[in-house]
């Protein structure tokens, strides 16, 4: 049922779901790269994988593309059983690797033309799609330059243009912005939202908090496990930790004083501010911290703060690591 699988995609059961994975596990020898991942990614949304290097983001994406076989577990991507029906999936996905993987000795135009023929777009349709991509991703100026001479941001746009020429309903982007300046990253995300608005499902991995926060929903990965998932606002609102900001001239003294707190889970310094995550449960935590600092002779202003996505990330990875 290689062809039938694609038709199933429209079935009532998974009408709104682009990617489903159950107990997905991949081992490389003794290393468990992905450990029992559960995924349910709705269509037409941007879904993020947030995690440090080595957390299993790339391995998961590669398994979902059918490039790597899982050790165990099941996957359905656009209604297709992966890896069994991986070949049928090829025309339905666009893939961007971490590293620029178009041909650096070919011009931007030649790269696009090559990808159009590989996806066997009809010649006049190919011309039309390339023209549209050049317009949309502002490639006109660089069209005849070897791709290897383009800047990080230009390569990025070219790679996205190439991955979307055949209008795939699903895009898999593996750390697409790791070699790109902030302005180009912003532009790139504008393009992703445009694609999502047209109904494209986008799975994107990143280790940038600001990018993760732009996703409709995300999964936080830590050492192969999904330690939290959901829309970023929901994750931030429901963070089971208290967030304090402590402003002081004597950051060294304050840090030393705070280390005595049992409930302290994480402490980070930003200039003259300390950002603390504390276990929930304590009634008047602000008063307690103020008292503690005063006892040590540290003058400081303590206030509660809303959780950021970074707090969610730190909290989730702490739990995953069994506490530190």
């Amino acid at each position, binding site marked *: 049922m290689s062809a039938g699988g694609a038709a199933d995609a429209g079935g009532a059961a998974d009408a709104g779901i682009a990617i489903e994975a159950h107990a997905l596990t991949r081992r490389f020898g003794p290393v468990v790269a992905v450990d029992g991942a559960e995924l349910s990614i709705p269509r037409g949304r941007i879904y993020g994988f947030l995690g440090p290097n080595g957390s299993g983001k790339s391995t998961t994406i*590669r398994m979902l*593309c*059918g*490039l*790597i*076989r899982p050790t165990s577990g099941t996957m359905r991507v656009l209604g297709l059983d992966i*890896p069994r029906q*991986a*070949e049928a999936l*090829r*025309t339905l*996905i666009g*893939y961007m*690797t971490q*590293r*620029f*993987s*178009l*041909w*650096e*000795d*070919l011009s931007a135009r*030649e790269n696009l033309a*090559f*990808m159009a*023929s*590989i*996806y*066997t777009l*009809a*010649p006049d349709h190919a011309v039309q799609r390339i023209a549209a991509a050049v317009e949309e991703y502002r490639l006109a100026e660089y069209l005849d330059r*070897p791709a290897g001479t383009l800047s990080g941001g230009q390569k990025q746009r070219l790679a996205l243009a190439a991955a979307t020429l055949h209008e795939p309903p699903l895009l898999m982007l593996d750390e697409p912005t790791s070699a790109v300046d902030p302005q180009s990253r912003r532009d790139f995300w504008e393009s992703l939202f445009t694609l999502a608005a047209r109904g494209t499902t986008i799975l994107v991995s990143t280790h940038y908090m600001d990018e993760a926060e732009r996703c409709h929903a995300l999964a936080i990965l830590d050492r192969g496990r999904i330690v939290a998932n959901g829309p970023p606002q929901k994750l931030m609102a429901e963070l089971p930790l208290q967030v304090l900001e402590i402003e002081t001239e004597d950051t060294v003294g304050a840090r030393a004083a705070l280390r005595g707190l049992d409930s302290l889970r994480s402490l980070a310094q930003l200039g003259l501010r300390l950002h603390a995550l504390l276990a929930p449960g304590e009634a008047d935590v602000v008063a307690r911290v103020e008292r503690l600092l005063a006892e040590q002779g540290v003058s400081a202003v303590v206030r509660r703060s809303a959780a950021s996505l970074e707090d969610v990330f730190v909290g989730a990875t702490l739990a995953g690591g069994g506490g530190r």
Partner: protein
Amino acid sequence: MLPASLRRTRAIAVKELRQLSRDRLTLGMVVGIPLVQMLIFGYGINYDVRHIRAGVVDLANTQASRALVADIASSQVVDIVARPPGAEELRRMIVTGEVHAGLYIPPDFERRRIDATRPVAQVIVDGTRPGVDTAVRAITDAPLPGRAGLVRRATPAIEVLTEFNPERRTAVQVVPALIGVILSMTMVIFTAIALVRERERGNLELLITTPVRSIELMVGKILPYIGVGLVQTTLVLLVGVLLFDVPINGSLLELYLGAGLFIAATLGLGLLISTIAATQFQAMQLGFFTLLPSILLSGFAFPFEGSPRVVQYLAQVLPLTHFVEILRGVILRGATLAELWQPVAKLAAFLVVAVGLAAVRFRKRLD
């Protein structure tokens, strides 16, 4: 419109040609390697051994012995460069490599001349050097006027007729086969690297997520290099005909058909290597690993009839063996491909097996 499969194959082939046309160094090698090799080997290889450095010990020192030495010297097979005083010194000079052959004339030379049962002199040959032994033997068989009193025939018992190369020129034997050797050198490495380079640069990870099939990728990669190989064939043939007067007795079309088949088979081998090697360095090493046996066992330089059975079987697996057979057949003997169906069929079988294995081994996966 072409079927999807052919369109993808063509796209790969066009891309490959474009990349090749941008790569100046490789383009230079496409033309430069065959020309340089052809000049070096065409002029350099000569089975007709001459001017071997030799020493003479003449303990008789009679008129006849001096005449014998002069006759041998005039044959030009040996150059007499030393006259050591005795047999011991002569041996010493062969050990040190000062001379590679020596003539020893004993004191009783005159008595031996009239005794037909004993040799008149001895030639000592350095057996470590290929070809010297055979060449020096030839002078001992030569009719030397100085060897008076020796019984010899006016005409040989059996006449030898050297067909297709009556002047017994080495170039005629070597140049046609050189086409095969030169193509082996460039083709295997070119393709082996073409695929491994894409893997190293990350292009392959992108390609395997597209609908392109393994066999389309393999064939698309081979096609442009068949063209490159035919260009090299033409270059070598031109040099062979213009500089070395090699006659082309067979059909030029059949020669090119045979060359195309061999090139495809060699490229198939290159692709197979590329599915094994992880880096360009490994691909190069594996390429050279197949090259040396090809050159030494294919019958290009030495007849493999003398090799042990096992090695002869090994030679049968090497595509160059069959191509050398085809080249000599078509170019020199004027044979047709139909008459040479055996090596043609073996080459075709090699091509199918190599490309098939490469396509099977090349998985569209990363693990």
